[in-house]
C-alpha cells in the first residue's frame, strides 16, 4: 500500500510460515499497528473507526433479522411483529438495526463535515474522497430499500413517492420515466413484487459498501491521514504509531458513541422512527404527512424546493453528485479551514444551511417553509459552485506552522528531533 518499509518481524515458526504464504499478519502490522498517524488528530478523526463498527453492526443485526423476516406483502409486517414479540431478543436486535441506521448516518455526516473543514478531499486524496461519495450513495440506497421492508404505511408510501420521481423523466423522453418506474415496481403499482426485490437488493448493497470501504481504507493508507493543520507528515516527530495511540483514542470514542446508540435502542427505540409505520401498508390510504427518516430530510427539502418535478429530482441528485467535484472546486492554496479565516465563516453557514434544510424537510411544502427551503438550497449549491472556487482563490491564509510538530509543541521546536516524540 504505502511506501514505508515494513518493520514486521515474524517471531514464531508459525508466523514465519504464514508470512511466506499469505502475509496478512504483516499487512495488519504495517497498516494498523506500526502505521504513522499524525500526532495532532482530534476526535473528529475517530469517526472512521466508528463507521466501521456501524457497518459491521448493521451487517450482523441485518443477517440475523433476515433469518426471521419474510419479504412478502402478506407476511412482512407480521414477521416483523413476530420478531419483536416472539423471537428471543428479537426486540433488541430489531431496535439495534433500526437505530443503527440512524447512528450510521449521524457518524457519516460528522465524518464528511470533518473532511470538508480540514480539506481531506484535496490532492492526493481525491479518489479517497470520491470513494466516500460512492459509499454515501450506497448507504442512502441501502437505507431507502431497508425502510421499505417493514411494509408499514410510511414504508409503502415512501417507496411510492420516491420511485414515482423517476416518472419525471417522461418530460425528457415520453414514456421513458413510466417505463423505468414500472420496471422498478415489477408492476403497475408498488406491491409485494417490489418488496421482494427491494429485500434482495437491501441484502446485497451492504456488501458492496463493504468492498468500497476496503478500497476507501486502502486509498487512505496510500496517502496517510490528513490532520487538523492540513500539513503532510514530514518527519518522525510529526507522527505516532497507530497502535497504541490512535487505537486507544478510537476505542474511547467508539464507546462514547455507543452510549448514545444504546440510549436510543434501550430507552427510545421508536423515537427516530415514525408512528405511522406501525400501521400495515394500505395502498388505498395515504398518510397525512409523508416524511422520510431524518437523515434524508435535507435532500427531501431540496427536492421539494424546486417547483418543477424534473428540476427537483435533478437538484436532489445533484446535491450529492456535486460532492464528487469538490477536490477540483476548492481553489484554496491550503487544505485546512483552520488557516482560512474567511472561508471558515462560509463553512459554518453551510452547516447551518444543512441543518435548516433538514428541519424544513420535515415540514409541509408550503408557505414560509418553501421560501426558506429555496434560500438554503440556493446557498447549498452556491457554497460549492461559488464560494469554494472564489473564496479559495482570493483568500489570504492565516499564518501556518511549519510542521505538525511545530503546531503541537510550539514555535521553539520547529525542527523535529526524535527526543520530541516522547
Amino acid at each position, binding site marked *: 500500500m*504505502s*511506501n*514505508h518499509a515494513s*518493520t514486521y518481524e515474524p517471531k514464531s515458526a508459525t508466523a514465519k510460515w504464514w508470512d511466506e504464504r499469505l502475509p496478512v499478519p504483516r499487512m495488519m502490522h504495517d497498516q494498523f*499497528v*506500526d*502505521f*504513522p*498517524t499524525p500526532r495532532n488528530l482530534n476526535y473528529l478523526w475517530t469517526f472512521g473507526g466508528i463507521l466501521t463498527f456501524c457497518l459491521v453492526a448493521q451487517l*450482523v443485526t441485518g443477517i*440475523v433479522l433476515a*433469518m*426471521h423476516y419474510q419479504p412478502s406483502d402478506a407476511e412482512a409486517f407480521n414477521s416483523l411483529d*413476530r420478531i419483536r*414479540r*416472539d*423471537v*428471543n*431478543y*428479537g426486540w*433488541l*436486535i430489531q431496535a439495534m438495526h433500526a437505530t443503527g441506521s440512524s447512528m450510521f448516518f449521524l457518524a457519516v455526516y460528522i465524518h464528511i463535515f470533518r473532511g470538508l473543514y480540514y480539506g481531506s478531499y*484535496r*490532492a*492526493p486524496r481525491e479518489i479517497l474522497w470520491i470513494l466516500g461519495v460512492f459509499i454515501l450513495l450506497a448507504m442512502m440506497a441501502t437505507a431507502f430499500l431497508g425502510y421499505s421492508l417493514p411494509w408499514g404505511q410510511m414504508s409503502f408510501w415512501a417507496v411510492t413517492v420516491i420511485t414515482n420521481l423517476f416518472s419525471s423523466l417522461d418530460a425528457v423522453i415520453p414514456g421513458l420515466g413510466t417505463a423505468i418506474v414500472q420496471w422498478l415496481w415489477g408492476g403497475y403499482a408498488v406491491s409485494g413484487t417490489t418488496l421482494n426485490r427491494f429485500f434482495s437488493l437491501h441484502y446485497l448493497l451492504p456488501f458492496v459498501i463493504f468492498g468500497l470501504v476496503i478500497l476507501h481504507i486502502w486509498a487512505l493508507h496510500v*496517502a*496517510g491521514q490528513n490532520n487538523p493543520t*492540513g*500539513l*503532510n*507528515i*514530514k*518527519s*518522525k*516527530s*510529526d*507522527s*505516532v*504509531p497507530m*497502535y*497504541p495511540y490512535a487505537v*486507544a483514542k478510537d*476505542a474511547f470514542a467508539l*464507546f462514547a458513541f455507543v452510549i448514545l446508540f444504546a440510549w436510543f435502542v434501550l430507552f427510545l427505540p421508536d423515537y427516530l422512527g415514525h408512528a405511522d409505520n406501525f400501521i400495515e401498508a394500505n395502498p388505498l390510504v395515504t398518510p397525512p404527512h409523508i416524511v422520510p427518516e431524518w437523515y434524508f430530510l435535507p435532500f427531501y427539502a431540496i427536492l421539494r424546493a424546486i417547483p418543477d418535478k424534473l428540476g427537483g429530482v435533478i437538484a436532489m441528485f445533484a446535491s450529492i453528485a456535486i460532492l464528487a467535484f469538490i477536490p477540483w472546486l476548492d481553489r484554496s*492554496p*491550503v*487544505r485546512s479551514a483552520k488557516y482560512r479565516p474567511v472561508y471558515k465563516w462560509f463553512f459554518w453557514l453551510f452547516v447551518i444551511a444543512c441543518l435548516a434544510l433538514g428541519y424544513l424537510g420535515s415540514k409541509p411544502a408550503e408557505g414560509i417553509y418553501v421560501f426558506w427551503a429555496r434560500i438554503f438550497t440556493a446557498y447549498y449549491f452556491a457554497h460549492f459552485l461559488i464560494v469554494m472556487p472564489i473564496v479559495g482563490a482570493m483568500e*489570504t*491564509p492565516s499564518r*501556518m506552522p511549519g510542521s505538525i510538530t511545530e503546531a503541537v509543541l510550539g514555535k521553539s521546536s520547529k525542527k*523535529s528531533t526524535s527526543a520530541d*516524540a*516522547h
Partner: protein
Amino acid sequence: MKRDTQELFDEDPLEGGRLMTADVEDPNRRDILVVAASAFSAVGAASLIWPFVHQMNPDAGAQALASAEFDLAPVQEGQAITVMWRGKPVFIRHRTAEEIETAKKVALDELPDPVSRNENQPGTPATDENRTIAGHEKWLVMVGICTHLGCIPKGQTLADAKGDYGGWFCPCNGSHYDTSGRIRKGPAPRNLDVPPYTFLSDTKIRIG
C-alpha cells in the same frame, strides 16, 4: 501579498513515526488501567454475543406449541391416529389385546435395540411395559419417524403394510417395527422414540 503555497507532495511522507522500540518495552504498557479498560471492553463485546446466538433458538411461538393436548375418545380399538407435535408426526395407536400380548412375549435378547427409548422412563429396557404408561398399555404413543434416515413408516391405517412383525414398516429401506414400535429387522438402529406425555384423563393426553 505574499502567499504561502503548501507543498502537496512530500518525499516519502510516511517516513516518520516508526514504532519505537521504547514503546514496545515500555513498562507503562502493562499498566493496570489499560488492562482494566481492555478487559471491560472485551467483556462487553463478549456478552453482546449471547442475544445473537439465542435468537436462533426456538422462539416463543414455537415454545408455546411445545405441548399439545389430544382427545383420544374417537380412536377405536385397533385404530391409530397421527397427530402433529413440534412439527413431527406422532403415532397414537389404540392397541388390541392381541397386539399387546404379542409384544409382551418377545424376549429382550431378540431385540436389536434393547433400550426402551421412552422419554418418560429413560434408560429402561425395551419391555412392552416400558414402552407405555402404566395403567394405559392400550395406548402406544410414538414419534412416527424412522430411526434410520427419517422417513415416516407405514402402518397407521388398515390398508397399510405392517411389516413382518405386525406393527409398522418403513418403505424407504425396509425397517420392520413390531406392535410395540420396536425395531426388529432392517437397518434402523433404534426403537421408535416415545415422547414425553401424560394422561390428563382416560381419553385426553398431553404430549410434551
